[in-house]
């Protein structure tokens, strides 16, 4: 009897699972077609790898511009377009226009959507009015507007099907991240780490826009959606794991923003994303580990409950947000096939974990200049297992309020920010756009006012002493934690990379170059200067039998703010002031999509 009941229960569950999985199956299948680019991240793995190989290392030098498209918006253009069959969907920063373009009809605009938004949201967006792209699912285009409205548009007509508010901009919440459709839900994060927002990941019903679950980054267990089975590094996190690491009610204004990319493993049924810095930037004001800011999350997409977490930077002292993408790959380590998750954190460490269990396998510096830590304790029997060892010379907490700590590498913008890396299964290497910038950081006391910046630190940024390149584009072996090759770039590389089966890796630069390099050696094979600096992600697709490469240019974002006037070296004395390149001497504002292809035979 018991057995029968059990069997019936299983059967019912299986039926339920099939029903729930249909939208996901469609999208998952679509993402396997290399001709399309159906998700902001390319596919659920976030590998940003395309099987297309018409453009390859031999012929990429002949690449030329096929067509261009002005977005009509001046601000920083992050993310990239979606391509589904003959349709391309291009998004813009605030005011968050969406254009649907028919690639088979001379790139005509089929529909355009432009929401009416209160411009008062603009200054609440900490670092430019960026937007990282739209998602597709079930015949809808999903847009996360600056004012946090999540809106579903009919992909054929642009008509609004549903719309829901994901946060309150008057309290500092804004929308910059790209939503992700998983099964019958839309997952979306929130920005506002510099405004003391209690940030969250939220799942909405794809059909109706109804909220299904919301998991906060900090707070009581029923708000952060953890249970007695949730683990960190193999051990249960226990009750009140977050509350215990904050003083009083500080978790209510604790930050931990979730504006990065989302990945998903359909077999393990887990979604992965990172949470950002705890608020404020003054570590003295918020004693404790501030869990679960700066954390890699693995949640069940149906319920939101976390299976495992891993906090990379407990009690942040430098604004090293943990929001960067989680790249899923299957590789062998010491001869054993593993389901891996690789993450290049703002803190300058490249992490490789077992994505089923959250076991930490590799944590190594992906910029040799990283100097705030001597490394992560990898000894499983140590009481500080998995924690980074913070060096006193770089500790802004130890130095205390009103003390300026000099020469910390990386700077607050991290060894890498949101610009996503790519992974090629052919070379088993990760291609990582990086920042090569250090900083002075002085924390001081601040007051919290709802809807106002809640920062509490003064910082200045400059290249590592003795160097002038502010970026590198590197190839990284995630199995061993080693840099394989590294190309210097004058400015931070703030563009998402693309790896292809043609043995070519693409990325953009802040001066505005689209570059193609050899996947094995890093040798530059092609470059073309687009109308403005590139902070967008490179995309590829096939239409009418031809492979295209597309990228949004339009300088801005944090890179545009920090680097526009050029950095200064506070240690070099007055004579060297202005010695570093000013981005404003290389490029100006303006959003354009540039699409490349090989010449007609």
């Amino acid at each position, binding site marked *: 009897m018991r057995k029968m009941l059990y069997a019936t229960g299983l059967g019912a569950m299986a039926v339920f699972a099939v029903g729930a999985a249909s939208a996901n199956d469609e999208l998952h299948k679509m993402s396997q077609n290399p001709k399309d680019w159906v998700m902001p991240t390319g596919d659920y793995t976030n590998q940003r790898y395309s099987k297309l190989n018409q453009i390859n290392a031999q012929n990429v030098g002949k690449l030329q511009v096929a067509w261009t498209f002005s977005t009509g918006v001046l601000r920083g253009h992050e993310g990239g377009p979606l391509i589904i069959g003959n349709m391309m969907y291009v998004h813009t920063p605030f005011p968050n226009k969406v254009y649907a373009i028919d690639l088979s009809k001379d790139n005509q605009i089929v529909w355009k959507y432009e929401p009416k938004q209160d411009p008062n949201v603009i200054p609440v967006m900490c670092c430019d009015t960026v937007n990282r792209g739209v998602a597709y699912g079930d015949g809808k285009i999903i847009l996360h507007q600056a004012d946090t409205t999540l809106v579903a548009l009919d992909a054929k007509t642009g008509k609004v099907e549903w719309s829901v508010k994901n946060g309150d901009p008057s309290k500092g919440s804004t929308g910059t991240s790209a939503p992700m459709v998983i099964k019958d839900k839309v997952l979306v994060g929130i920005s506002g780490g510099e405004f003391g927002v209690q940030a969250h990941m939220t799942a909405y019903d794809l059909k109706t826009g109804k909220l299904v679950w919301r998991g906060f980054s900090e707070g009581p267990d029923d708000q952060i959606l953890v249970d007695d089975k949730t683990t960190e590094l193999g051990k249960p996190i226990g009750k009140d794991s977050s509350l215990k690491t904050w003083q009083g009610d500080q978790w209510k204004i604790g930050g931990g923003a979730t504006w990065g990319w989302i990945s998903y493993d359909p077999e393990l049924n887990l979604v992965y994303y990172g949470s950002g810095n705890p608020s404020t930037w003054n570590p003295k004001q918020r004693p404790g580990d501030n869990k679960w800011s700066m954390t890699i999350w693995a949640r069940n997409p149906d319920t939101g409950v976390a299976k495992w977490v891993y906090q990379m930077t407990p009690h942040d002292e430098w604004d090293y947000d943990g929001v960067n993408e989680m790249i899923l790959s299957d590789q062998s380590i010491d001869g054993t096939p593993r389901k891996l998750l690789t993450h290049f954190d703002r803190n300058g460490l490249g992490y490789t974990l077992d994505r089923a269990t959250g076991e930490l396998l590799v944590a190594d510096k992906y910029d040799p200049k990283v100097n705030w830590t001597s490394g992560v304790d990898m000894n499983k029997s140590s009481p500080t297992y998995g924690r980074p060892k913070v060096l006193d010379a770089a500790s802004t907490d130890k130095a205390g309020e009103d003390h300026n700590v000099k020469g910390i590498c990386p700077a607050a913008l991290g060894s890498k920010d949101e610009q996503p890396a790519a992974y090629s299964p052919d070379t088993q290497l990760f291609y990582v756009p990086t920042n090569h910038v250090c900083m002075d950081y002085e924390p001081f006391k*601040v007051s919290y006012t709802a809807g106002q910046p809640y920062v509490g630190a*003064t910082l*200045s940024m400059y290249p590592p002493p003795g160097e002038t390149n502010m970026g590198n584009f590197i190839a990284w072996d995630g199995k061993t934690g080693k840099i394989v090759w590294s190309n210097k770039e004058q400015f931070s590389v703030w563009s998402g990379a693309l790896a292809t089966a043609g043995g070519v890796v693409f990325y953009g630069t802040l001066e505005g170059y689209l570059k193609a390099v050899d996947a094995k050696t890093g040798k530059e094979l092609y470059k073309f200067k687009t109308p403005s600096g590139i902070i967008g992600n490179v995309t590829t697709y096939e239409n009418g039998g031809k492979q295209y490469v597309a990228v949004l240019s339009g300088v801005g974002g944090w890179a545009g703010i920090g680097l526009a006037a050029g950095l200064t070296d506070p240690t070099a004395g007055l004579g060297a002031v202005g010695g570093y390149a000013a981005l404003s001497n290389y490029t100006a504002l303006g959003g354009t999509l540039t699409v490349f292809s090989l010449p007609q035979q």
Partner: protein
Amino acid sequence: MRKIWFVTAAIFVVAMGGVASAEAPGDPTAVKSEDGKYLDKDGNPTYKVAPDGTVDWYTYSGYRRYHSECHVCHGPDGMGSTYAPALKDSLKSMNYADFLGVVASGRKNVSTSQENVMPAFGDNPNVACYMDDLYVYLRARSNDAVERVRPAKHEDKSEAYGKAEDACMGHNDKK
């Protein structure tokens, strides 16, 4: 005390008809000082840089507050960004009263080609309590009296300044 005084100044600006008094800030030379605050001949706050490069406390404090609250839009050292104007240049034509009005009440410049919005900081003690510091620092920058980067040497914080700061920031009555 500082806060009350500041609010009075802002009301005065509004009474004058918004932000457009459009009078240049005038000669920045300091003619007197009160508890470490230097004033020009019109009685407006100004900077003081000694021959050895030592700056007054307000300039130094303004540097720090600017690089916390302002630089995320206006760029390092008042140099501007892809996102917001260079205050190093704006302060050449913006006088003290205009400055207070804009920072307290915000400003919108939204058209088809741009969407510049400055928020109102009047309710934010991290800014409102340091209006004079920010003005003095940016005034010094606009006259090239201090270079980019953190001033190397500065006068001490005066006792009166410290008391006023604590009162304005509510450091003794934390929520």
